[in-house]
């Protein structure tokens, strides 16, 4: 572990974020890494925009809206606990996060 960073798992893939980053940021970093991987090394995939965090009752993709714990669109499963707001919880070492909970 590098000083000042946290390593955790998002849908089984390892991701490293700065200490103090939110779980929401970790989910976005993991999605960006996956998008860059799919585009190939040096590809133009980039960060790939906002990733899906969950699906609504009707099945439409959703991601953080308010960024401050009000809207509940960012909820994910963290270490087995469902419906946790990813924007309100800091990423911790070895935390296990699942989207689409």
């Amino acid at each position, binding site marked *: 572990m590098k000083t000042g960073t946290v390593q955790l798992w998002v849908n089984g893939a390892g991701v490293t974020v700065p200490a103090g980053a939110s779980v*929401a940021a970790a989910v976005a970093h993991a999605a960006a890494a996956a998008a860059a991987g799919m585009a190939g090394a040096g590809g133009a995939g980039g960060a790939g925009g906002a990733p899906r965090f969950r699906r609504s009752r009707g099945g439409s*993709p959703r991601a953080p809206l308010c960024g401050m714990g009000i809207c509940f669109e960012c909820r994910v499963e963290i270490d087995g606990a469902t419906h946790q707001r990813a924007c309100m919880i800091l990423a911790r070492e070895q935390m296990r996060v699942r989207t689409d909970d």
Partner: protein
Amino acid sequence: MTDSYDVVICGAGPAGIAAADAARTAAGTGARVAIVDANARPGGQVWRHDVRFDGARAGPTGEARQRSRGVFGAAATWYLQTQVVAAAGDELLIEGPTGATRLRYRKLILATGARELLLPFPGWTLPGVCGAGGLESLVKQGWPIAGQRVVVAGSGPLLLAAAALLVRHGAQVLGVHEQASTRHLWSFVSGLARWPMTALQALGLRARLARVPYRCGEFVRAAIGDERLRAVDIETPAGVRRIACDYLAIGYGLVPNVELAELLGCRLVADHGPHARVAVDEHQCTSLPNVFAAGEVCGIGGARLAGVEGRIAGLAAIGALRAAAALGTRRRRARRFAQHVSHHFRLDARIHALAMPDTVICRCEDVPLAALADFGPPGAWDGRAAKLATRCGMGACQGRICGAALVELGLDRPTAAAAPLFPTRLDSLTEPPTAATM
């Protein structure tokens, strides 16, 4: 378990920090003060810690560190990452990282701040559509935005602050689209001469956005995408223009967070526009004699007004009424600025008509506008019937997002605040009662 305090403050933004500082300083060493906040660090939304630029040290940083110097540490007890779930008698039920606790108070100060006004339009549920303050908050907490194409839109001075923060983090901000007309904006800017410090801050923000187009009289008509946002349609005086982008940061101003005040039974009023605020007297006292309120929850006015109101509330809560009254002039001056802002950024009526029959209004329960239109016209809309028939407002956010949107559209909230104020762990609610019954 019950912890007892002389003063309990809910919210650690500018108002809450000022209240804690005032109560502690004026009380000498005597008063026991506690502060509850949902975030990991004090500062609220406006002084939120920036993971990239504020360093990794624990506790408050930047402006929040300056302001809370006197109260962070031993002078007050901090309950961070903690939310108020229920209230009864003179006790709050709070839930934090270590579980549920009861806080007993002699005096309570509500500094619960505001949230963004988010209004429905076609495509607003797509990943990549965020509040303007919302994206700012996500990015400060480490969300990767460098190189991403962002359109900033909506209304008010906060759009400039959001755009500047995004540029600082390496985003490619394609433009800021302010719905107010050029005429209103010039009138706002020329009026700023009365607040020279604020005018200088605005000029500084504008300078940092030198390469970002700022357009007045334009608003987002629709967001277009599939699994995520791909483009936005902007209504301009010259017709609709489509702009390809990765993110839309959109905010139409702020709405007071009155839920806890409402649950306690404090009198609310809606005298500056359609959204309720907590009614207070000259000492920031609510309709309940031992409950005070300060900052945005008493009406949107910005961080400076919140600081003055917080100080008044903190002083009044410990009985230092003369010192509190001495701050009345400062409060009046800060309030005039708030009126100046709200007057010039009034929303264009076309923005209230953007949602189509199939546009989702209640995001939690996927309720479209068409399903809600059956419950009466504006003025005679039956929110309760709509809620029972459609589940509008009954999802995880408990009507916070759709409620404010419906009020803005001239309808009513489908739900009033009720305990638990946030979805909670069941064991919190069964925490054995001590003195009062929840």
